[in-house]
């Protein structure tokens, strides 16, 4: 399985005169965990929004799960799962009600939905609180639930936009276990993060700096090529010139 499930060619998005994403080209292979790294404002979220159909590209091509983002955005929607930067569940509904809602939206057959729901709640240890309001749960539980809900309809690709921001290290670890499980089950994962240690968990990563992809490859290859000890060091190497430039521009 080496065919690409996400393919972007010279994908560009401008907001007025500001170029948020500047002609990036990359591929994500089927079944891999692909990390999208970059500082805040580097353009990670904009890329995800273009690939999920929330935002129209200004130029360039992209296809997701074999569907063109311009013409077949409806087909894309059925094949992807999405967990937004902000919390994507309803706080005033219970975990069970949230799951049922998304089960209905993705048209999962009733007995099948019940089976998946039970497994999921069990797996997350949320069976006891399945009828409490989501708003009353700790953030870590909520994020794990949100990820599981995004995977509920077994999408071919799942987009996770900074899913672990604000979550404690232990929960982040558990969260990544969930990501691996999904990956083993055949789901392609595209995850953005600005935790550099998480980059090491990815099969391949790309580092975005000021709207461009500054580096792309496996974490080990990238470190070796740059002679860096860690992804963190590599990232600083790549991002430093850009932020210095920005600072010079501001002056």
């Amino acid at each position: 399985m080496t065919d690409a499930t996400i393919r972007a060619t010279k994908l560009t998005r401008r907001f007025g005169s500001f170029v948020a994403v500047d002609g990036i080209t990359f591929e994500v292979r089927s079944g891999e965990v692909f990390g999208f790294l970059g500082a805040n404002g580097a353009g990670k979220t904009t890329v995800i929004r273009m690939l999920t159909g929330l935002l129209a590209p200004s130029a360039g091509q992209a296809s997701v799960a074999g569907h063109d983002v311009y013409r077949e955005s409806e087909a894309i929607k059925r094949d992807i799962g999405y967990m937004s930067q902000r919390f994507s569940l309803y706080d005033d509904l219970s975990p069970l009600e949230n799951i049922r809602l998304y089960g209905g939206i993705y048209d999962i057959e009733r007995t099948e939905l019940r089976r998946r729901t039970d497994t999921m709640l069990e797996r997350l240890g949320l069976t006891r609180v399945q009828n409490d309001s989501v708003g009353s749960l700790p953030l870590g539980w909520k994020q794990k639930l949100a990820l599981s809900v995004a995977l509920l309809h077994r999408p071919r690709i799942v987009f996770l936009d900074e899913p672990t921001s604000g979550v404690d290290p232990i929960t982040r670890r558990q969260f990544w276990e969930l990501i691996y499980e999904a990956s083993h089950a055949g789901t392609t994962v595209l995850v953005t993060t600005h935790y550099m240690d998480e980059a090491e968990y990815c099969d391949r990563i790309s580092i975005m700096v000021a709207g461009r992809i500054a580096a792309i490859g496996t974490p080990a290859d990238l470190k070796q090529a740059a002679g860096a000890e860690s992804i963190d060091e590599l990232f600083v190497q790549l991002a430093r010139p850009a932020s210095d430039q920005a600072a010079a521009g501001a002056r």
Partner: protein
Amino acid sequence: MNALLGLLRKEWYHILRDRRTLFVIVFYPIVQVMLFGSSVRTDVRNVRLAIVDPTPDATTLELRNRFSASGVFRIVSVTPTDAPLDHLFQTDTAQVAVAFQPRFGERLSRGEPAQVLVFSDATEPNSGTSRQIYVRSVLQAYQNELGLRAGALQIVPRVRSRFNPTRVSANLFVPGLMAIILTIIAALMTALSLTREKETGTMEVLLVSPLRPWQIIVGKISPYLVIGFLSVLSVYGVARIVFHVPMQGSLALLIAEGMLFILVSLSLGILVSARTSSQRVAMLGAMMATMLPTQMLSGLVFPIESMPRALQWVSLIVPARWFIVIVRGIMLKGVGLSYVWQETMILAAMALVLLVASTQSFKVRLQ
């Protein structure tokens, strides 16, 4: 279909679990009608009347009796001179004063003109005028009788205020209030609930899902249609039971027109929220787009005919303007659809345009 049912169920959960908002939705219409209906009055009742009668005689006593007996006036003072009048008006002890000429009865019996001076407090011009009219009608009635006794020829105008014969203001305001209440519930609530989803981020998830824009909109609109329906009923109930507003026409037609108006307001709310991203902005937007025009330009408070020409043109696009005509027509005049079909068509056209526009602005992807 499953998806839509799920959305509807979720929307109901939102509404039923937000206790404070639910409380507002349920009690707002009732409180509003009670407040408006009982505080905003232009009908004339219990008018405080001061009499200046320098030379009391049989005629002036008869007239004084007639004022008291009319049920409109309450005589608060009888004085021989008009000296205390200023004080009476200033302290609001009197609202109207009637001053008889000295030797009033005597002049009248001799066939000389007998003059009566009528003062009224015109700080509120409309009420002032209505009170004057009542004073004059009492005097007029008496003069007519005198004339008949004397066998003189005369033209006797008899005035009837049709559809609201006793000029009860609740009859005028309650139908109009229905427009305001429905606007608030429909436009404001949908605008808020949509922008709340934008703020929390759940809207993105819905947009990324295979849901169609129309499904999201129908899911948002339907619960508020039901709530609007209940509001129409509760406003109608209060109007009938507490204020005895007459219902000349068909309740079914009233409800149907009410639903049409709610649909217009809901689509407005969606349009507003499609263009804003925070609840605060949406609230202001919904207020500006619906509440202000509804109160000021709909003919509810100020008659459209007396507005400047430019504002009259603006009032044409205010949905409430048409709805108020319809409600007053149905409730007070008892007309059927054949008399309000033009207004109905205008509302229907507005609903259509707004719905299409809001679905379109929804399709435009999130920026």
